[in-house]
């Protein structure tokens, strides 16, 4: 029972980090209808900036710089690349993001090399014990930080003019333009916000129990894809539920791996995709996604 509680808590914490990534993914999709395959490279960029700067300027300023850096990279991708292709087919744009991803990941991989970079977080490998349940402080911090960020984001999305413009553009770009919404700005903002959220997620993907930032960190970020897709690509609620689903599934599958050896090893990595496939079989638009309607 204790193991289960620990695994569940870890899963929820991990899930909240995936939710941060998935949220950025959904924001870009809602604002521009583009599936952003370059999201993992934004995350890697944010983590890299934090890892490189924390020795010189301290952890918190480095984290801020990481968030700003990833937001800037996101905005730059929108401004320099995506904007040139506006009005094109959205599947073409999705493929363009794959190209951007390859460029960014190649450059970052070259810089990181075979090193494992520490991000200099203040939690280290300290653990928190509540009753018989033991959980790493980093996991608690991840849960709290992700919770706060997501709440803040949803409040902004619901109540500010930026949020109204964003939602209007998501429903109909042309009608939003008739209201005087500047679609370029909305899309730029979406990419920047997605980058910022990804940078925070990068931090919590590289702290204890993970050794640090390495080349393969962007692969871990890939697990947010099934999170976004199973929740429904155009739903913020879906991103949260999807993130938690993937996190808990992964944590439980990894934790109980020894009982599931007949399924082979590495089930934890596979489980999120299995869950995604099962959910899509039942609900092709994802849990909270809008059903695709053919307009006649």
């Amino acid at each position: 029972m204790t193991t289960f509680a620990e695994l569940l808590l870890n899963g929820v914490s991990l899930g909240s980090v995936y939710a941060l990534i998935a949220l950025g993914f959904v924001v870009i999709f809602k604002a521009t209808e583009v599936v952003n395959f370059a999201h993992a490279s934004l995350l890697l960029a944010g983590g890299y900036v934090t890892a490189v700067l924390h020795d010189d300027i301290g952890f918190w300023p480095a984290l801020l710089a990481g968030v700003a850096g990833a937001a800037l990279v996101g905005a730059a991708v929108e401004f320099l690349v995506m904007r040139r292709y506006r009005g094109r087919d959205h599947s073409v744009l999705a493929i363009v993001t794959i190209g951007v991803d390859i460029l960014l990941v190649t450059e970052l991989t070259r810089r990181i090399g075979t090193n494992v970079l520490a991000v200099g977080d203040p939690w280290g490998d300290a653990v928190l014990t509540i009753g018989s349940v033991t959980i790493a402080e980093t996991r608690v911090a991840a849960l709290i930080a992700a919770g706060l960020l997501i709440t803040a984001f949803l409040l902004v999305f619901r109540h500010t003019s930026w949020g109204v413009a964003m939602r209007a553009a998501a429903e109909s770009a042309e009608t939003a333009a008739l209201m005087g919404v500047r679609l370029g700005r909305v899309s730029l903002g979406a990419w920047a916000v997605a980058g910022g959220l990804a940078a925070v997620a990068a931090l919590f993907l590289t702290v204890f129990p993970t050794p640090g930032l390495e080349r393969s960190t962007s692969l871990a970020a890939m697990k947010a894809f099934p999170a976004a897709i199973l929740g429904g690509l155009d739903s913020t609620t879906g991103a949260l539920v999807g993130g938690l689903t993937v996190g808990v599934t992964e944590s439980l599958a990894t934790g109980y791996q020894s009982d599931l050896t007949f399924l082979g090893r590495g089930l934890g990595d596979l489980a999120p995709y299995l869950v995604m496939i099962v959910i899509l079989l039942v609900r092709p638009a994802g849990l909270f996604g809008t059903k695709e309607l053919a307009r006649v």
Partner: protein
Amino acid sequence: MGGAALAVRDLVAGYGPVSALRDVSIDVPDGAVVTVLGGNGAGKSTLLRAISRTLSFHGGAMTGGSVTLDGRPLDGRGADRVVAAGVSQVPEGRQVFARMTVEDNLRAGALGARGPRTAKAAALRRVHELFPVLAERARQQAGLLSGGEQQMLAVGRALMASPRLLLLDEPSLGLAPLMAARIGDTIREINGQGTSVLLVEQNAALALRLATHAYVLEVGEVTLSGPAAELAASDEVRRRYLGVVDETAADDASRATAAHPVLSRWEDSR
């Protein structure tokens, strides 16, 4: 709040190789209601898109002519600048943001308006006075409103930007006659408060009652124009758009048809 004068001169527009408007010139004097009549595919929506700079969403472009508001050019700017200059459009088919609340739809309408908060609050009061139902249903999802209520919301949303010129694309489309008449009264009231109105309609009877001046658009060209009362009395308009048939009018019309090619059953999904 005041109105504004719109002048469209020799407008040429099309979608790729397809020409939609040829040398169209239209004037909306300050404080007037002007209507543009025409069948499906005549180019009415293209005209409004050219004014509001949203042709690009349909793969179209303006290739000649000019559009000015109070003498200042509107063409060559982004759609947001047109809104900021004081021109709001109620799109065809209402196009309310169905998944947003009525309240948020109205907020969206004010996004492009320049001006202080107090102006937006005043605009909201005005919209609520015109359409009390929008205040009652503020928290409801716009997609759940009836057709007539959605049209009120679409008009109210456009008014949130406190426009000096209001563009209306087929506001009576798909509405029951009583509701269409109500929308007509509202347009008159909005105009009475000083806003100029350019009304595009297939319901010619309604449009000619509201307007001071009217244009008839056929296959991308202006074929008739004049004071609304005169057009309403003209045989050709009576036969073609008002459904009145008599011998001489029918003769007149067939002569006019010979002069201008008319695609009478042209279904345009745009």
